[in-house]
């Protein structure tokens, strides 16, 4: 009869903990759940990665990426790749929740709904960053361009945040419709155009060694977009998962 009081003790401690502690605990639990599922199946990351490399390969033939073209289109190629691979990941990550009623289970759990949104979004962000962390060196080697500039990495990080913030919200909408995966890019791309433009322009600026003064507007735009859309997604997520 020893362990039972201990368990009860822990439960009481959890419930009396402050709201923020509770929030962070449920957040990490959701992120950890996604990571563990991915570690075991390796479905999502491998699909995103292979897809991203294929897109780069296709661009290689479609655009004749010789030295001259590379200087101007590298950022564009990279961002199109990230955006396409990103939709793949977003779709899969939400479809996984919808498949066997996992989402209902998550919603039934006594946690704040926004913790579910932020958990899923951070999980998606981690996947996207991992894909980017692999694609960037591969691209560098294939085309002998040095992509490891702190400024460029900052732009990629900020751009990914904005993309994932809107993408997670819209993918949780898309999985609940009849057309499902087909719908996500149609809903997502018109809304993330500011991110894509700012990210491409900012990345090109850093790659061509432009003045920081010229690049700053793009970084500001990315920051503004990130802040606005994280805030809005936080406010409306409740209405999307409500039954």
């Amino acid at each position, binding site marked *: 009869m020893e362990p039972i009081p201990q368990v009860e003790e822990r439960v009481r401690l959890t419930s009396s903990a402050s709201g923020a502690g509770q929030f962070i605990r449920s957040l990490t639990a959701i992120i950890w759940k996604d990571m563990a599922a991915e570690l075991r199946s390796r479905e999502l990351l491998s699909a995103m990665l292979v897809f991203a490399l294929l897109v780069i390969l296709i661009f290689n033939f479609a655009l004749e990426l010789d030295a001259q073209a590379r200087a101007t289109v590298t950022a564009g190629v990279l961002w199109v790749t990230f955006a396409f691979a990103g939709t793949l990941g977003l779709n899969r990550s939400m479809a996984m929740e919808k498949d066997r009623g996992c989402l209902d289970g998550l919603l039934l759990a006594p946690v704040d709904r926004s913790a579910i949104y932020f958990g899923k979004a951070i999980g998606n962000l981690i996947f996207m960053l991992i894909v980017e962390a692999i694609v960037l060196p591969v691209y560098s080697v294939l085309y002998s361009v040095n992509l490891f500039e702190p400024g460029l990495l900052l732009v990629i990080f900020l751009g990914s945040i904005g993309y994932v913030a809107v993408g997670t*919200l819209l993918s949780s909408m898309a999985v609940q*419709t009849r057309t499902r995966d087909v719908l996500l890019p*149609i809903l997502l791309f018109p*809304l993330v155009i500011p991110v894509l*433009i700012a990210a491409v322009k900012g990345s090109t600026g850093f790659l061509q060694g432009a003045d920081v003064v010229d690049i700053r507007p*793009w970084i500001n735009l990315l920051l503004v977009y990130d802040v606005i859309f994280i805030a*809005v997604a936080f406010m*409306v997520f409740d209405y*999307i998962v409500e039954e």
Partner: protein
Amino acid sequence: MEPKPRLLAILDIVTLLLFLTAVAMVFFYAPLEAVMGQVQRVFYFHVANAWVGMLGFMVAAIAGVAFLRKGDRKWDIVGLAAVEISFVFFFIAIVSGSVWARGSWGTWWTWDPRLTTAAIVELVYAAYFMLRQGIEDPDRRARFGAVYAILSFLSVPLTFISIRIFRTIHPVIIGSGAAGAEGSFEMTPKMLQVFMFSLLTFSFIFADLLWHRIRLGKLAEVTENLRLKTLQ
């Protein structure tokens, strides 16, 4: 279904009269623009159409917020009505702008900030309809529509700003124009009168159509409920 309200009937007639007057004013009252000639007359309705397009976009976003807060289905009907009307008007704005561009820039289309933003707005509207079409449950359809209307209303200005950081050739008739703008002109007082009158007229057209569309939306809801009752 309640009979057609008296006020709506009056609004119909007023709108029709305003529209006919506006057409007459554009062709006979407005002076001929010196450089561009007759093609410049498209300007009055072009801007008015674009204005209605943006107005509907705003109405849809406000209706979206109202729906999410109150949960009253009538706001969903308002939002859908506004988007439907604005989709058409914005399309007319793009086509008429294209006609004007052919005359003044010598090309049907350029990737200028306003044109690009207009194209994206059309695509957002199209995505809105596709989203709604994919959902059977009316309550969920209303919620998702509201959320998407709000998101797109926030994203489109950012799109505009992001493209605006490039240089533009689109003339800015109201406010200060960019240095590289082509096809710009100074509005004479008469032109300004016609322009303002067109804006007023198209606002009336928007209000009139919106009212009709909301009535239609309510009827559609009644029929849907009747059908569900029969099926049960």
